C-alpha cells in the first residue's frame, strides 16, 4: 500500500515560512478552502493554517544550535484522530494513506483535535468544521498536471529543498532513501501512532585533516630545511 508523506530536513530548513504562505495560498483558494483569517489586521489576529514553522534553540547562549521546525499533520499510519470521529468525517484514504476531513460531514465537535497528540488539527472559526493538512490532495492526484508539479505546494515552494515528498512504503523512493541514510525519525514515537511524516536531524559534515596532510613532509623543494629526525629513521626515509 502506498503511504504518501513528507520528509522534512531540519538540517537545511532556514525558517523562511515559504511553505506556510504557499500552503495558505494554494489551499485557501482550492478544494480544502477557505482558510479563514479572523481580525487579520487588528489586535489579536488569528487564522486557520495547515502548516506552521516554529523555532527552537538547543543549548545555552552562545553555544546554541537553532532549529526551525515546520509542523503539520503527520498523516499517521495508525491515526488516533480517525476512530474517535463520531460522524466518519475524518478518514484515512485507502489508496495513498492521506488523512482527510470531509467538510460536509464534520459537525465541528473538536473531538479529533483532542485525540491528536501533535496539535495538527485546527477548527475553522468561520466554516465551523475541522481542518488540517491535506498534503494538497487536489494537486497530487491531479493527473492533468505535469508529474513534477504533482507535489504539495509547500514542497514546490521550499527554497532550500528541505521538504521531500513521496511514498514512504516504497523502499527505493527518494523519501525512503533519505529516512534510511540520513537518520530520519518520527515525532513522539512513544504513542505508537506511527507518523508517516519523518524529520531528518541536524548533521555536521566534517572531514578530518591532519597537519602533515597539508604540509608535504618530503617536499624536495624544502630538502635543505628538513629537520633532522631526532632518533632513527622515519617512515619517509624508508619510503624513498
Amino acid at each position: 500500500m502506498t503511504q504518501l508523506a513528507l520528509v522534512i530536513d531540519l538540517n537545511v530548513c532556514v525558517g523562511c515560512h515559504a511553505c506556510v504562505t504557499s500552503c495558505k495560498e494554494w489551499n485557501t483558494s482550492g478544494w480544502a478552502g477557505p482558510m479563514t483569517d479572523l481580525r487579520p489586521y487588528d489586535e489579536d489576529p488569528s487564522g486557520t493554517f495547515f502548516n506552521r514553522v516554529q523555532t527552537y534553540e538547543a543549548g545555552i547562549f552562545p553555544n546554541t544550535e537553532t532549529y526551525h521546525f515546520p509542523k503539520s499533520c503527520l498523516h499517521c499510519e495508525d491515526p488516533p484522530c480517525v476512530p474517535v470521529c463520531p460522524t466518519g468525517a475524518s478518514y484515512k484514504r485507502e489508496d495513498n494513506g492521506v488523512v482527510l476531513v470531509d467538510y460536509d460531514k464534520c459537525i465541528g465537535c473538536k473531538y479529533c483535535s483532542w485525540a491528536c497528540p501533535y496539535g495538527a488539527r485546527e477548527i475553522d472559526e468561520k466554516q465551523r468544521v475541522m481542518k488540517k493538512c491535506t498534503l494538497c490532495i487536489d494537486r497530487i492526484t491531479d493527473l492533468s498536471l505535469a508529474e513534477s508539479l504533482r507535489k504539495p505546494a509547500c514542497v514546490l515552494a521550499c527554497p532550500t529543498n528541505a521538504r521531500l515528498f513521496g511514498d514512504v512504503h516504497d523502499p527505493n523512493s527518494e523519501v525512503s532513501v533519505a529516512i534510511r541514510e540520513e537518520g530520519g525519525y518520527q515525532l513522539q514515537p512513544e504513542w505508537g501512532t506511527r507518523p508517516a511524516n519523518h524529520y531528518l536531524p541536524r548533521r555536521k559534515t566534517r572531514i578530518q585533516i591532519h597537519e602533515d596532510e597539508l604540509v608535504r613532509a618530503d617536499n624536495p623543494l624544502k630538502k635543505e630545511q628538513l629537520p633532522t629526525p631526532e632518533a632513527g629513521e622515519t617512515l619517509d626515509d624508508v619510503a624513498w
Partner: protein
Amino acid sequence: MHPAFSVIFLTTLIGAGQGLFLALYTGQLYSLARLLPVQSESFYALGSIIALALLVAGLVASVFHLGRPERAWRAATQWRTSWLSREVIALPAAMGLILLYGLFHYLGWTNPLFVVSETLPVDITLIVGALATLASFVLFLCTAMIYASLRFIKAWHSPLTVANFLFLGIASGFMLAAALSAYMGTELVAFYGTWAVIATLLGGVSRGSSLYRNSRFRCKVDMQSALGVHHAQLHQKAQGFMGGSFNTREFFHGKSEAFLLMIRYLFLLLVFALPVLLILLAYLLESSRLPVAAFAIQYIGLVLERYHFFTEAKHPQNLYYQSMA
C-alpha cells in the same frame, strides 16, 4: 484543556438526570420487595419528568459545543469506533425509555403482566425501568469513556474517570430524589438521603484518588521526543505566529495555579462536605428544605468539579507551546 461550559453543563445535567431516574427505580424495587412503602404514581411520573428535563437540558447545552449542530444526526453513525458516537445513541435511548417509564406510571399501567415464582409481580413499568436503568449505566459509561479513552491525556486516561462520572452522577441524582421526596412529603427522604451520602462518599474516594494521581504523574513524552532533538536544554524562540490560534486557545486553560487550587477546595467543600452535613442535619431536624439545599449546593459544586476536571488535563500538543505551558 480549556473548560467548555457546554460540556460542563452537559455532563453534570445528564449525570443528575440519570441518577434521579436510578433513584426512582431503586425506590420502586425496594417497595416491590416491601422494604419501603409504595409510592403514588404521581411521584414516579413527576420524578421521571424532572429526570427527562435534566437530560434535555444537557442535550441543549451540548448543542452549543458543536460547530454544525444541524448535522448532529451524523454523529450516530460511527458507534463501532467512537465513544462520542455511542453517547449520541445512548442519550436519546435513555431519554425515550425514561419518558416511557414516567408515562406508564402516569397512566397507571401497573397491573402485573405476569408473576414470577408466585412472588414477584412484573408490570410494564418494571420492564421499561430495567431497560432505562441499563441505558442510564451505558450512558454513564459512554460519557466517561469519551475522556477516559484518550490515551494521550493521562489525567483522564484511567478507570477513575468512569468511577467519578458514575458515582458523582448517582450522588447528585439521589440528592435530587431526596429533595423531591422531602418537597412532596413522602417517607423516602431518609432512604434517598442515605444512598446519596453513600454515593457521595464513594465519589469522594474515587475523585480524591484521581486528584492524587493527577498531582503526581509526568507526561510520557517530553519536548525532546516532541521535536526529536535530544538535547537537555531546549528553548522555544517562536511558535509560528504572533497572535492566538486554535492550538493556544483550545488546549490551555490560562488560569493561575492559585485560582485552580481555590476551585479545587471549593468543589471538595460543595460536592462532598456540605451536602453530607446538610443531609445529616435534615435527618436530625426532619427538615424538608435542607435536602433541596443539599442538592443545589452539590450541583454547583459539580459544575466546579467538572471545570477542574478539564483544567487537570494536560495535552501533549502543549509541548509545542513552551511559553504558554
